[in-house]
C-alpha cells in the first residue's frame, strides 16, 4: 500500500517534471490557434533612458508616472515596497512629499484605549494598499488578483517593456477568437484573455507641468516611475560602476606591467 502510494507519487512528480513545460505550451497553443494576433501592436519605446551603462531615470517623467499610478492604477494595484519619502530621490521637495502623503490615511498606533484610528500618512509611510488583503483584492476584481506593482518591471519576462506591452496590447480579438465575459483581448497576455480593462484613457490624469496626458505619454511616464520603484538604486549603481570599472581597468593594466617586469628575465 505504502509502496504503491510512494510509486504513484514519484510518477506524478516525474510526470510533473516532464510535463510542466509541455502543459504550458499546450495551454498556449489552445488559446493560440485562433487567438494569436496577426501582428503585434508597435508601441514600445526602443530605448528607455534607464538602460545602458550611463542609464538614469527621467525624473520628471517618473514623477508624472507617480500621478498616473496614484490616480489610476492605485484603485486596484498595491505598491507595497514604495514609501512616499522615496519621491525625494526623484527630486520632489520635502513639502511636496508631505503634501501628497497627507492625502492618504494609514492606521495609527493603538491609542491609550487600544483603539486603532486612522491618521494622515507621513513621508516615511509606505503607500497604502487599496484592499485590506489579497482575498479582498481578488474578490473585488472578478477573482483575478491585481498584482503588486513594486517589482512588476523586474519580475516579468519582458522586463522593462512589460507595462508598455500590456497597456499597448489591447486590440480587437481576431475573427473566431472568443473572449469570455469580463475579460479583454490583450496581444501580450499569455492566453490573450486578460482580466484588466484598458485602464488608461486620454486625459485620465491632469499633469501639473502641462504635459498633455495622452495614453502613450502616460504609459511612458508610468514605466519610468515603476522602473524606479522596482530598482530605486539603479542610478547610484551605474554611476558607481562607471567609476569603479574605469579605476579597475587602470589598476589591471598597471598590474600587467608589473607582472611583465617581474617575469622579464624568465622568458
Amino acid at each position, binding site marked *: 500500500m505504502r*509502496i504503491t502510494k*510512494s510509486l504513484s*507519487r*514519484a*510518477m506524478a*512528480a*516525474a510526470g510533473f*517534471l*516532464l510535463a*510542466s*513545460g*509541455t502543459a*504550458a*505550451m499546450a*495551454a498556449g497553443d489552445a488559446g493560440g490557434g485562433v487567438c494569436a494576433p496577426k501582428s503585434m501592436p508597435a508601441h514600445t519605446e526602443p530605448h528607455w533612458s534607464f538602460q545602458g*551603462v550611463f542609464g538614469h531615470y527621467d525624473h520628471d517623467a517618473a514623477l508624472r508616472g507617480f500621478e498616473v499610478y496614484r490616480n489610476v492604477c492605485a484603485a486596484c494595484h498595491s505598491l507595497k*515596497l514604495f514609501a512616499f519619502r522615496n519621491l525625494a530621490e526623484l527630486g520632489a521637495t520635502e513639502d511636496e512629499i508631505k503634501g501628497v502623503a497627507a492625502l492618504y490615511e494609514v492606521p495609527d498606533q493603538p491609542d491609550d484605549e487600544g483603539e486603532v484610528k486612522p491618521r494622515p500618512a507621513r513621508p516615511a509611510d509606505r503607500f497604502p494598499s487599496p484592499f485590506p488583503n489579497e482575498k479582498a483584492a481578488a474578490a473585488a476584481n472578478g477573482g483575478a488578483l491585481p498584482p503588486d506593482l*513594486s*517589482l512588476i518591471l*523586474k*519580475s*516579468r*519576462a519582458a*522586463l522593462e517593456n512589460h507595462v508598455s506591452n500590456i497597456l499597448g496590447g489591447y486590440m480587437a480579438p481576431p475573427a473566431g477568437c472568443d473572449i469570455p465575459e469580463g475579460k479583454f483581448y490583450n496581444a501580450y497576455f*499569455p492566453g490573450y484573455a486578460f482580466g484588466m480593462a484598458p485602464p488608461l484613457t486620454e486625459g485620465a490624469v491632469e499633469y501639473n507641468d502641462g504635459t498633455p496626458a495622452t495614453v502613450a505619454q502616460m504609459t511612458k511616464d508610468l514605466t519610468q516611475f515603476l522602473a524606479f520603484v*522596482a530598482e*530605486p*538604486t539603479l542610478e*547610484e*549603481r*551605474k554611476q*558607481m*560602476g*562607471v567609476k*569603479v*570599472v574605469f579605476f*579597475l*581597468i587602470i*589598476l*589591471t593594466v598597471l*598590474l*600587467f606591467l*608589473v*607582472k611583465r617586469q*617581474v*617575469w622579464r628575465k*624568465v622568458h
Partner: protein
Amino acid sequence: MSTPEFNNPIVKWIEYRLPIFSMMHHEMHEYPTPKNLNYFWNFGSLAGFVLVIMIVSGIVLSMNYTAHVDYAFASVERIMRDVNFGWLVRYIHMNGASFFFIIVYIHIFRGLYYGSYKAPRELLWILGVIILLLMMATAFMGYVLPWGQMSFWGATVITNLFSALPLVGEHIVTWLWGGFTVDNPTLNRFFSLHYLLPFVIAGVVILHLAALHQHGSNNPLGIDIKQKGDTLPFHPYYTIKDLFGIGVFLTIFVAVICFAPNYMGHPDNYIPANPLVTPTHIVPEWYFLPFYAILRAIPDKLGGVLAMFAAIAVLFVLPWLDRSPIRSAKFRPIYFVLFWVLVADCILLGFCGAKPPEGIWVILSQLGTAYYFAHFLVLLPLLSLYERPINLPLSISSPKASASEPQAV
C-alpha cells in the same frame, strides 16, 4: 629545506613558539612552481578569492536577512532599498555565486585538459570534486533564501527528487522539509546550512591546498619537474600573475554587478513565493542546467536522479578510468579531440536544461547524456589502450627536445 634567519625580535619570539613565519617562507619563497604555467592556472587562486568574497558578503547579508516565510522576501527587498549599500552587497553575493561556478568550471576543465587528476594528484582531484558538490548544495540552498517563486518551486522540485528512492524516499523528503511540504522549517534549516557549508568548503579547500603542495602544480606539458631550472619561486612570480588575474576578474565582475546584475538570474524570483501558483517553466540557475538536462533525459524518475548524481560520481573515479600515463592533452591527439567534444557536449546539455523537455530537446539531452557517460566510462578507458601519444619533451626547460625519448613520464 633551509630554515630562514629572522632578525626582528618579535618575529623571532613568535617563530620560536609557532613556526608560522618559516611556514610562510616555505610556501611562498621556496615552494617550487613550474615556470611554464599558463593563465588557466590562475583560476585556482581566483576561486579561493571568490570564496572569500562570498563568505564576507554573505555574513553581511545575514545581518539584515530574516529567515521566515512571511519576511524573507521583504527583508531581501529591504536590503536592496533601505540598507546602506545593501544592493551592492546583495548583487555581489548573487552574481558572485555565478562567477564562482564559471571560475570553478574553467578550473575543472583545465584539470581535465592537462590531466591534473592523474597520479600522484588523485586525492587532490577528489577533494576538488567534493568542493564542487558542497558548492552545489550551498548554491541551491542559497537560491531558496530570497523566497521568490523560483526559490520555492526549485526547492520543491529538487527536494522531491529524493522521493524517487525506494522505501526510504518519502521519509527522507519529509525529514529534509521538516514537515509535509516546503515551508518555514525548510527555509530555516536551509539558511542554517547555507551559513555552515561555506566554512566546510573552506576546510576542504585547505586540504585541497595541502594536497597540492605535496607534489606541486601540474603544468601545461604534464611532465614532472626534473631540474631546478624548471621551476620558479611562487613569490613574486605567481603572486603578481594571480594579482593581474584578480584585476581582470574584478573588472568583469564589477561591470556585471553594476550594469547587468540580474542578467544571470530569473525574473520569476522577484515574485514572492506562492505555493498555490506554479510557474509555467521551472528552471534552476544556469550552472545546474547540464545536470538538470541529465535528470530529465531519463524517462524514469529514479533513473534520472541516479544519472544526475552519477554525472558527478563518475568524476571521483576518473583517475582510474583514464589509465594513460600521459597527462597533457597536448601530447594525446585523440584525447585532445574528445576533450573538446566533451566541452561541447556539456554546453549542449546546458541548453537542453534550459528548454522545456519536449520534441528535439528530449532527444538531444538523451544523446548528450549518453555521450557524457560514454566519454568517461567507455572512450577514456579504451583510449588508454589504443592512443599513440606524441613524444614528450625532455623537460620543462627544454620543451623542444623530444626526439626518441621514452614515453614514460
